[in-house]
């Protein structure tokens, strides 16, 4: 280990910082010469064999430029590197020495040109293999099948004992999604490996170099010789070198598995390392450079096809989800109390996204459960928990145990949920559930023991080895479900919007229907009530007349009381009728409010005379509105102003008006008994009376009618009052139209 990194000692805690890109040795399958990119005649480092191949005398290597000694293939590569080419863009140059032909592979990293010399083995695969690979990938559009096809074909072409498609999870750990292997080998398909098995430095180097080969873990490394005048801290970066020596940790890891040779090919999707092809061989195996290049290209083909297949799958899911969405929306019904119900196609709820179950939670109904959910009694409690969270519009968790512990139960397999509140008037939720994702994850060995300190080397330093136990180890601790992705959240938002829209439409039409019914009913009821009431009143009158002389005072009082009651009831019925009638659609027109109020004052002449009232009417701007309703409203307001005065007080009423650019305001002010603040809300309610009939007569409908009239014209009716001093009623309307000229 000390040979690889003179300045770095591996410990239990620094594996993720191991400088695996700059070991000071190379694999035993080739030779390396590193030159100064700024002065390619200047050697930075070399392996012993390189000098032999190139015929450079060792004694002059640090003191003289080597340009003159470099054979033609090397000079050509240097020229091209200087022109900005890379190892990937250049074909290797053949170089023959001592009867052996070497592939010369040039790369540039930092300030160094690295020339690799490898035996030019005849290629094991050809361009036609890559084309065949591509054609096979196109024979399926199922990702799972794609993994297997790729693994099978790569193994067939490359001849490794095992080829795996290994995918990284966003959390860093990885799992085998596709595998082709020698029949006698134990399958690794489906196994999960901790993130530490492929430490971060290894991922970075692999993503850069794309293909990596370890020909034989038992073959001794060849040391690199560096310039004696190399400054401290200057390293040779071998990221792009084909021959970079392997981390001793990784060597032991492979040895523990019995693997002797590997080839690893990066799989990039969208610029990120999606996963890799891991090719294992249980003997030495050294695919040549041509073969590795083509395998790298095959990985590119795989990546392209994978993205196509994934996109197609996303699209298929999207279409299926949309179809389920239409079915679901179409099946929504509301009952009389606005409770959402799912008719025939309620099961579409579970088809909207990848989930294991779904539920509809409503306030006054038993929950509807589809597929795998919480037990029913826990579903009711879940609605409570959501309410305690403030009834969020959308709530998600992929970890109920942590985010919603009150709702968590170890008895269920549910690990996460997505809840969407789909009602503004009630608290109905659609909830989707997912099982705990890794309840049955099978780890290849205990991930809690990525490394073991198992030896002390000669110098007394701790030696680390990867865990040796590859026995399958089941992880039953994890409670999370698969994370809820953006497209699922979008779906939930969209569903929520559509259900709310349905609810709003339903509410509006129901309200309209109820209003119509109510108006019809109150009109008919009050109309039909009037007749018997009148008959009762009439007969009471006849009785009083006929009995005239024979009635004693008490009996006469009874009949008077009965007559008064029928008259009061008749007033009530009339007011109810008016209240219902205010809602009738009447045409809007220009109303001359000055004339309207003058008419009312004239009609009230008797009362004014009797009470000695004074009414001052100021300038009243005209308004575009409903004439009859305004008449009722102002009649009620002025009548009230005259009526609710203390005994012996002469009523004084002022009616004023004003308008600005946006509003028209009318005020009716009196010197009456006023209204205590706590009673202000009551006076506008139907039958909201503050006084006994013996004090002030009235049905209690007057101000309710006024408010309805004003609001029916989109205005507001407010009162400001000081008990004992008087009240001011203010009607404020938007200016809806300019007065026609």
């Amino acid at each position, binding site marked *: 280990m000390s040979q690889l990194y003179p300045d770095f000692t591996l410990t239990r805690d620094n594996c993720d910082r191991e400088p695996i890109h700059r070991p000071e040795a190379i694999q035993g399958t080739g030779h390396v010469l590193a030159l100064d990119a700024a002065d390619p005649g200047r050697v930075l480092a070399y392996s012993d064999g390189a000098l032999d191949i190139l015929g450079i005398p060792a004694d002059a290597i640090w003191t003289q430029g080597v340009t003159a000694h470099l054979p033609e293939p090397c000079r050509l590569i240097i020229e091209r590197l200087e022109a900005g080419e890379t190892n990937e863009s250049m074909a290797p140059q053949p170089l023959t020495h001592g009867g052996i032909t070497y592939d010369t592979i040039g790369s540039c990293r930092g300030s160094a040109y690295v020339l690799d010399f490898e035996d030019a083995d005849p290629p094991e695969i050809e361009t036609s293999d890559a084309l065949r690979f591509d054609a096979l990938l196109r024979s399926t559009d199922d990702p799972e099948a794609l993994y297997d096809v790729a693994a099978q074909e790569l193994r067939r072409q490359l001849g490794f004992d095992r080829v795996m498609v290994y995918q990284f999870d966003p959390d860093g750990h990885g799992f085998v999604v596709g595998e082709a292997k020698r029949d006698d080998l134990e399958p690794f398909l489906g196994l999960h490996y901790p993130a530490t098995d492929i430490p971060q430095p290894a991922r970075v180097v692999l993503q850069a170099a794309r293909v990596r080969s370890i020909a034989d873990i038992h073959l001794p490394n060849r040391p690199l010789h560096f310039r004696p005048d190399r400054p401290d801290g200057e390293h040779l970066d071998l990221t792009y070198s084909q021959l970079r020596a392997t981390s001793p940790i990784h060597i032991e890891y492979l040895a523990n598995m019995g693997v002797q040779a590997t080839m690893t090919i990066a799989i990039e999707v969208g610029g990120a390392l999606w996963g890799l092809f891991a090719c294992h061989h249980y003997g030495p195996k050294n695919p040549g450079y041509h073969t590795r290049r083509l395998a790298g290209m095959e990985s590119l083909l795989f990546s392209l096809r994978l993205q196509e297949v994934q996109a197609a799958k996303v699209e298929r899911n999207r279409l299926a989800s949309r179809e389920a969405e239409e079915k679901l929306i179409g099946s929504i019904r509301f009952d009389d109390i606005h409770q959402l119900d799912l008719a025939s196609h309620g099961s579409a709820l579970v088809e909207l996204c990848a989930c294991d179950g779904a539920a509809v939670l409503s306030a006054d109904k038993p929950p509807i459960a589809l597929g795998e959910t919480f037990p029913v009694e826990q579903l009711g409690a879940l609605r409570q928990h959501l309410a305690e969270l403030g009834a969020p519009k959308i709530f998600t968790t992929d970890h109920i145990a942590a985010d919603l512990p009150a709702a968590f139960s170890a008895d269920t397999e549910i690990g996460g949920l997505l809840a969407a509140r789909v009602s503004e008037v009630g608290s109905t939720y659609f909830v989707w559930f997912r099982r705990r994702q890794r309840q049955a994850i099978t780890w290849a060995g205990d991930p809690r023991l990525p490394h073991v300190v198992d030896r002390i080397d000669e110098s007394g330093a701790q030696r680390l080895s990867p865990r040796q136990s590859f026995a399958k180890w089941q992880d039953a601790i994890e409670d999370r479900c698969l994370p809820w992705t953006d497209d699922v959240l979008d779906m939930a938002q969209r569903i929520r919007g559509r259900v709310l829209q349905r609810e709003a439409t339903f509410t509006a039409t129901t309200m309209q229907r109820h209003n119509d019914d109510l108006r019809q009913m109150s009109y008919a009821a*009050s109309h039909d009530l009037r*007749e018997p009431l*009148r*008959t009762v*009143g*009439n007969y009471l009158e006849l009785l009083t007349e006929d009995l005239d002389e024979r009635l004693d005072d008490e009996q006469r009082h009874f009949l008077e009381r009965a007559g008064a009651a029928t008259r009061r009831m008749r007033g009530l019925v009339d007011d109810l009728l008016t209240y219902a009638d205010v809602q009738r659609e009447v045409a809007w027109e220009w109303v001359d409010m000055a004339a309207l109020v003058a008419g009312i004052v004239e009609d009230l002449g008797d009362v004014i005379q009797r009470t000695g009232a004074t009414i001052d009417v100021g300038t009243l701007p005209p308004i575009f509105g409903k004439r009859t309703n305004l008449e009722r409203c102002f009649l009620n307001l002025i009548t009230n102003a005259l009526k609710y005065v203390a005994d012996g007080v002469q009523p004084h009423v002022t009616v004023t008006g004003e308008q600005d650019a946006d509003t028209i305001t009318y005020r009716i002010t009196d010197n009456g008994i006023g209204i205590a603040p706590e009673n202000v809300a009551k006076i506008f309610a139907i039958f909201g009376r503050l006084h006994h009939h013996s004090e002030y007569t009235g049905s209690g409908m007057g101000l309710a009618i006024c408010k309805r009239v004003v609001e029916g014209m989109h205005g507001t009716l407010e009162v400001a009052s000081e008990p004992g001093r008087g009240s001011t009623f203010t009607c404020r309307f938007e200016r809806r139209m300019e007065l026609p000229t």
Partner: protein
Amino acid sequence: MSRPLHHVLLVDDNTDDNYFHARSIKKSGRAVTVSTCRDGEEALACLESDTDQAIPDLIFLDINMPKMNGWEFIEAFANLEPACRDTVVVVMLSTSPNPADRERAGRTDIVSEFIDKPLRTETFTRIADTYFGGGDDD
């Protein structure tokens, strides 16, 4: 101006109202005969019969009635022989809270007045005075 008021016809399906109204009329001492019909059809049949006594001087007409309501009666009345209708005063006597009814009554020449139930002696006396001259002449 003064002419006799012999016969008043009440057209109303509400027998209680008819009873009360007939009493108010009789109490005034202004009419010899008060008869009642329960709907427009009966009233029309009464007008079309040839006997002179059958033709009333004054009709009090309700609006909401079965078979033929007040409005339908007025249409039919307008198509009668002039002899049957020229001398007849028609007064609507109703409880309709619907302002449209009152307006509609105002638009037809046939209806002389529109008054609210119940008809009281004083109101009847005023109507009798208005259309048939002062009671003293009678």
